[in-house]
């Protein structure tokens, strides 16, 4: 944690995802071409017998600045002899889905053996038959999953998904500009933040936090309530309060001073705070925050060998000691039982972090956005996109 990253998260993610972004630009020019270019998406090369290709979100795995390697992943390769190829090119759930869907449909290799979509997107993968069922024999550590995460509605037995990290959505702010902190929507939309607020492009987190602030139970939200919250956001955009609706890039806006308050993710905010001498802070809103998970999934296009290697890797990350090592770096909610005890050994100050190992009291303030039907999914996404000028 103490080593500062030399590049901004945004620049790094851009460098890492050059190929995908280029493909995206090409896509905007002639969308039809995407169908023809299916063969060149993804991580790289075909799956090989003794390798596993993992597509994950940027800045989401312990990284050693000096050796430019991912220590836990290196250890996995040493222990098992399986070569782990890591790609930080899962930047956005929708974008990634758009990129690989055609290949999944045709059953062509998407270039990854393991991917980590968020809950609702994992649900879509399962629904469409794009996720393979795990061979439990390869993942004995599966039993280590926290009870609260063990049976989500989209995969009650955790047959084809396992949580990678849990993410809290709440308020993040610049301490200097908001000395009293931000606990409510009114605090967020305070005069000093006008025109300097950024909210997440992840619909369920941004609208979820707004809905909770309006006193709506997001586990049962109705369409009217949802649209009402979207209108609220649209109004804040047109009135010049919200300057942007973004993914991880909001971190860049905070550090550059362009944003002073955000609806953001816990882990990002802690990394930012530690890199900027406590200039930033994060809190779960008084009215409640959101919680979601990113999940390991083995795509339907992965070969049997790739699948077995992927399962071994998932098993490895469910080892409490390994999970603790990852959590100490990423600062997200750790889904693995026993990791807290392991954390005591490596970073005792983090073992009591409510944001990595939430107590029951904290957990009770976090809410899961209810799952949507395919119809709702497209209609609500459309409203959310239109509110941000798209």
């Amino acid at each position, binding site marked *: 944690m103490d080593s500062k990253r030399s590049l901004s998260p945004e620049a790094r993610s851009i460098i890492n995802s050059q190929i995908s972004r280029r493909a995206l630009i090409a896509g905007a020019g*002639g969308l039809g071409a995407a*169908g023809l270019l299916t063969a060149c998406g993804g991580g790289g090369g075909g799956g090989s017998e003794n390798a596993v290709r993992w597509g994950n979100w940027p800045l989401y795995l312990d990284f050693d600045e000096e050796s430019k390697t991912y220590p836990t992943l290196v250890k996995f390769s040493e222990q098992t002899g399986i070569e782990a190829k890591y790609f930080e090119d899962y930047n956005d759930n929708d974008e990634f*889905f758009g990129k690989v869907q055609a290949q999944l449909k045709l059953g062509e290799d998407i270039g990854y053996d393991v991917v980590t979509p968020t809950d609702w997107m994992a649900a879509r993968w399962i629904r469409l038959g794009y996720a393979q069922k795990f061979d439990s024999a390869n993942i004995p550590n599966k039993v280590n999953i926290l009870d609260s995460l063990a049976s989500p509605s989209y995969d009650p037995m955790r047959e084809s998904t396992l949580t990678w990290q849990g993410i809290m959505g709440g308020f993040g702010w610049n301490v200097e500009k908001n000395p009293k902190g931000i606990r409510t929507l009114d605090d967020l939309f305070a005069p000093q933040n006008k025109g300097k607020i950024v909210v997440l492009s992840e619909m369920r987190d941004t609208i979820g936090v707004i809905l909770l602030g309006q006193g709506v139970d997001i586990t049962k939200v109705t369409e009217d309530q949802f649209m009402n919250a979207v209108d609220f956001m649209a109004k804040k*955009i047109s009135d010049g309060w919200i300057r942007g609706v973004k993914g991880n890039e909001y971190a860049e806006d905070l550090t550059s001073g362009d944003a002073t308050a955000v609806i953001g993710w816990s882990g990002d905010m802690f990394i930012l705070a530690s890199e900027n001498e406590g200039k930033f802070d994060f809190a779960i809103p008084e009215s409640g925050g959101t919680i979601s998970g990113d999940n390991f999934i083995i795509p339907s296009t992965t070969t049997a060998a790739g699948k077995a290697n992927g399962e071994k890797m998932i098993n490895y990350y469910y080892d409490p000691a390994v999970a603790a090592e990852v959590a100490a770096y990423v600062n997200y909610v750790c889904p693995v039982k026993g990791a807290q005890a392991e954390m005591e050994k490596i970073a005792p100050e983090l073992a009591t972090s409510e944001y990595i190992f939430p107590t029951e009291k904290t957990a009770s303030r976090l809410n899961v956005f209810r799952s949507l039907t395919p119809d709702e*999914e497209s209609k609500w996404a459309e409203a959310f996109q239109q509110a941000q000028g798209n």
Partner: protein
Amino acid sequence: MSFPKVRVPYLLLLPGFVFLFTFFILPIINLAQTSTQTPLSGGDTGEYEQTLAFSNYIQAFVENKEQFGRSFLYATLATIFALAIAYPLAYAIAFKSGKYKNILLVLVVAPFFTSFLLRTVAWKQILGEEGFVVPGLRALNIIGEQTTLTSTSVAVVAGMTYNFLPFMTLPLYASLERIDPRTIEAAGDLYANGLTAFRRVTVPLSMPGVVAGTLLTFIPAAGDYVNAAILGSPNTKMIGNVIESRYFKIVDYPTAAALSFTLMVAILILVTLYIRKAGTEELV
């Protein structure tokens, strides 16, 4: 001579034709097909069926006319600014740079050596709160304490102008450089002062460069979405951003396709009108 002469031109056209057919014609057909589809009833996200719903076009246009307007406005502004910056630049390189000509040309092209995206992100830093532009303008009282430059249309147009500047400069340079200096001297011999010679001789002779440069700038600028995405705000979204979001975020392929087609046709019409007015002979 194994080939009869008449076949040679066709053979020369073949590689280009095959390439265009595969990477332009086929995708266009695919795009046209997608644009008239509607969601499969009871289907999942991203599943559509062909129903020849031409109403997609009307709906897509009506819902996004604001972004269409903005795209053409920003593209026009960026083209005008690029021309205003590039013409003197190209003129200086062509006529006044002497032995520095090659170095200056390399400097014009040099930004191409780094990624378009990184250059745009760099602009975000330059125009950001902690860059030097904003504090500078504040110190000069040009902008107020609360005014920012990123997330504004100013930043988007500035980014576009910058990013497309070489596309304007190079064709301008090429046509200015071709001008025979003796024609300008001749104008002087005929009692034209410097300004008149420039207006009556240099400008008309450089028109091919102006037309090519404006087209090379305007067409990609109108479809650009990177500048608006990185430097803009929700209030500066362009049609490219809508297409991206329809395609990737909402998984609404038909609307995305209809918008792409509409954009293509709109650009085609504007370009045709422009070339008609400017004259096609200027392009060669």
